[in-house]
């Protein structure tokens, strides 16, 4: 895989508090890489350091395919977390301005703008003044603005915040399509469920420190153990007595059993006591969301802090 961006040993302090400790990762061509973490974990700070809006105290940001120390602004698309649009201008004018700033040919930009407006269900809005758009529409226009110049690397800071589920799906589909066409995508989010299904690799950050870094499926295999949900009247003690069960959560007749990482499903299922009251049963892997909550609360997984091979 060809790396487009590499971040090495990034450190940053505000006043006396260190907000980034030794952050390192890379983003490759055609992949979706996610920076995940709770609010205040350092996601936006990391991205701002990449975009040259802040400067790191230590460490390096390397754009491959680009010589020199400057940021290849024309090849990078950026959708910041704090985003807005000039109020009293037309949608097309602002999109063309963004394209012009990136030195992208205007006739091509116009064509692309119209295509994307159509894709985002904003057909015919190109001459509408930004003021008259709803918040969601505005966000779509901002997204178009960040990709209007066909960037090699697209950096999206919380792209889904404030979107309704329908628009979220449109954004997801579009981001995936861009990645399939070879764009390297770095996105940050605290909405795990959205990211879980679309990202190839992830970088979990908490309090400015790397917690997990690796391929999505490896992370799931490593951290996302099986959990078994049983609906029926059962004693907690009986359930806890089942081998390879680490934890049991019970809410009325619903019990969730967390299994040890070493557990293999067929063996474990055949060992279930025959007298258990089972109305319904389902087995699933722990979701990214649960890993995230565990990490954020500093529970078990955090203790097993580790790095997977990112390649």
């Amino acid at each position: 895989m060809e790396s487009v961006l590499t971040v090495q040993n990034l450190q940053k302090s505000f006043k006396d508090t260190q907000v980034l400790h030794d952050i390192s990762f890379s983003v490759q061509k055609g992949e979706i890489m996610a920076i995940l973490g709770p609010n205040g974990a350092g996601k936006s700070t990391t991205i701002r350091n990449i975009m040259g809006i802040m400067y790191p105290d230590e460490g390096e940001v390397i754009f491959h395919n680009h010589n020199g120390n400057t940021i290849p602004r024309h090849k990078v698309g950026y959708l910041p977390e704090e985003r807005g649009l000039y109020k009293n201008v037309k949608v097309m004018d602002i999109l063309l301005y963004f394209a012009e700033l990136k030195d992208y040919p205007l006739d091509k930009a116009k064509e692309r703008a119209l295509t994307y407006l159509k894709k985002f269900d904003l057909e015919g809005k190109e001459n509408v003044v930004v003021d008259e758009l709803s918040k969601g529409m505005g966000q779509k226009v901002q997204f178009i603005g960040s990709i209007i110049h066909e960037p090699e690397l697209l950096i999206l800071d919380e792209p889904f915040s404030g979107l309704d589920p329908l628009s979220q799906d449109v954004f997801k589909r579009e981001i995936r399509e861009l990645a399939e066409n070879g764009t390297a995508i770095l996105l940050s989010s605290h909405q795990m469920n959205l990211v879980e299904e679309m990202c190839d690799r992830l970088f979990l950050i908490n309090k400015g420190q790397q917690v997990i870094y690796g391929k999505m499926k490896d992370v799931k295999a490593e951290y996302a153990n099986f959990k078994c949900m049983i609906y029926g009247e059962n004693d907690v003690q009986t359930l806890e007595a089942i081998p390879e069960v680490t934890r049991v959560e019970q809410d009325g007749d619903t019990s969730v059993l967390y299994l040890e990482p070493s557990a293999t499903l067929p063996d474990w299922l055949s060992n279930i006591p025959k007298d258990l009251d089972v109305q319904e049963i389902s087995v699933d892997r722990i979701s990214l969301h649960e890993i995230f909550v565990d990490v954020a609360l500093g529970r078990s997984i955090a203790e097993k802090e580790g790095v997977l091979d990112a390649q």
Partner: protein
Amino acid sequence: MRNSLKVGKWEMKRNLKSKSFLISLFLTPLIFIFFATVPNLLMDDGGDEESGTTVYVNDSIGAYSMLESIAEEQSFLSWNLEETDQSLNEAQSTIDSEDAFIQLNEETLQNGVVSYVTGDEVSNQFMTQLQTLEQPIKQMQIQQADLNEEQMALVSSPIQFQVAEASAGSESVEMSSSPFAEDPFENGVPALFGGIVLFSIVITGMMIFQSASQEKKEKVAEIVLSSVTPNELMQGKIIGYFALGLIQVTAWMVFIIPLSLYLVDDIPIMEYLLTPQLLLFVLIAILGYLLFASLFVGLGATLEDASSGSNFQGMVMMLPFLPVVLIGPILADPNGLAAQIGTFIPFTSPAVLLIRLALIDQWPWVEIIISLAILIVSIWLFMKLAGKIFKVGILIYGKNATPQEIWKWLRA
């Protein structure tokens, strides 16, 4: 630089397409015209009555023809002269409310007393107008005194004051009794033009402040900064609003020049305007703009909401109006201490220079050059500082910066 121009072009286009800018662009000169013409029209009514002031002259010393020629020469004397045989007492009892009576007799020549009577509705200006008779009457008195030519020349020549420099060996310099220029229009018209340029671009400079503050409020800054550097964005704004200022001046001139040609048709304005002096005045105006523009763009980046600025920011906003304080002393003495101090303070020097150079004939070139040098150095300095403030300030959301914070950014 290319990026700055792109930003500048955008700022220009954005404003030219906005209704409020267009309205103010055309409304301001219209308001100006309104205030320039309407009081004039009203005054003209008064003037008509005045032009009807019939002045009866009882002349027993042969001064009437001289009076007639004065009334013709001095256009502001709207007198209709008429000779009369009425005595002062008769005039007192019979005079019409809009008429006046002047008595010139032996007493006038001997004691220098001119008795006159005015009707109720004759304006107070009549007294001032009477003063114009002083010089000719004096002349007649001198003639009466039977002086020879030499004596007459001596008596009628004004007193001149000559100053000798205190330092040894220096030549004595003859000063004309007044520092004011002989022809007030020669420098005045170009300076007025420069003043208008300065005024309008300082106004657009304030728009920069709004624009920077809005950029923050609308949170576009970070998107734009992913394409250009903060310095390019800042310079672009300064360039864009400079162009807007020039557009505004042009629009004003389209209204003002024909209007002023119409209003004051006896002064060849265009000839006075298109002189080498104009270049210096415009240069001063542009330097003034650059100084305030850099000040405002930095300030705007510290405020999210212009209306909630602290006293600190409000005080900075008032800086362009500082020269107003100095106008009085400068008019009184264009080469005085206040004027000189004003010339060397960058915030006041553009306006003070414009006023002074319009008033005085002998331009103090040394002062002008030092002042321009100070101005240019301060522009450079302020651009640097504004750049520092802008870079940090534009990306701080949700709050206004305090002076302490700004100080910290400046030292960073």
